[in-house]
């Protein structure tokens, strides 16, 4: 059983992370990964030059670790890998990568889904989009909030 949680200012390669993660596994049959990428267009269609993610001291990493711990407690997963960028991220670059491994397909999917829902709404980041004409702060959408609430309503 292993849990890797990382906060980095540097760019990272999701495929290389999946390779490392897979190489670390034992006899697990199911591996799920999620990659969140910075988009070149905002929801309103305007161009985004960069995404900037702010953090706060050790609290950001601790919030990620707590979420990963909850995922291991809640789902039958043996390994997890969570990486989150901080700082300035260009369109197309990975913002967040999550991988989970389990003997069971369903548990691997649900744990990755759960990790992302909670990272989106509870990890300590503040995100702003830089446009040609300024910057705007992004907060979780109503959909993000609804996605997280799913896990409060069902047990498993």
């Amino acid at each position, binding site marked *: 059983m292993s849990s890797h949680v990382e906060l980095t200012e540097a760019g990272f390669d999701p495929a290389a992370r999946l390779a490392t993660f897979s190489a670390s596994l034992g006899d697990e049959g199911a591996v799920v990964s999620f990659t*969140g990428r910075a988009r070149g267009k905002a929801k309103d269609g305007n161009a985004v030059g960069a995404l900037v993610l*702010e953090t706060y001291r050790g609290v950001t990493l601790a919030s990620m670790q707590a979420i990963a711990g909850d995922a291991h407690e809640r789902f039958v997963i043996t390994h997890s890998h969570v990486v989150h960028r901080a700082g300035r991220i260009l369109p197309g670059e990975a913002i967040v990568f999550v991988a989970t491994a389990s003997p069971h397909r369903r548990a691997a999917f649900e744990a990755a889904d759960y990790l992302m829902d909670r990272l989106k709404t509870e990890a300590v980041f*503040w995100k702003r989009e830089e446009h040609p004409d300024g910057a705007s702060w992004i907060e979780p959408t109503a959909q993000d909030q609804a996605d997280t609430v799913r896990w409060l309503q069902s047990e498993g």
Partner: protein
Amino acid sequence: MAVVTSRIELCGRLADACGPFVDLALPVEGLPVPELISVLGEHFPALQDGLSKGRIRACINETIVPDEAIVLPGDIVALFPPVSGG
């Protein structure tokens, strides 16, 4: 009333109005979080708008605290607007 000047860090969009740090005089016996926020808004009217949008949480000495927590002079204090990971 004995007061001590304390530095408060403003995270995310809260830093837009007055920058990421403001100094505030705190009574030596401290202030509960909602009162801190209200005093801050009185001293820095430009912050009022940001402080009233969404739920603002306080972080004391690197721990996010419930509203009933008391902020004391000397604490490392930050105010968090709603977060937005991933």
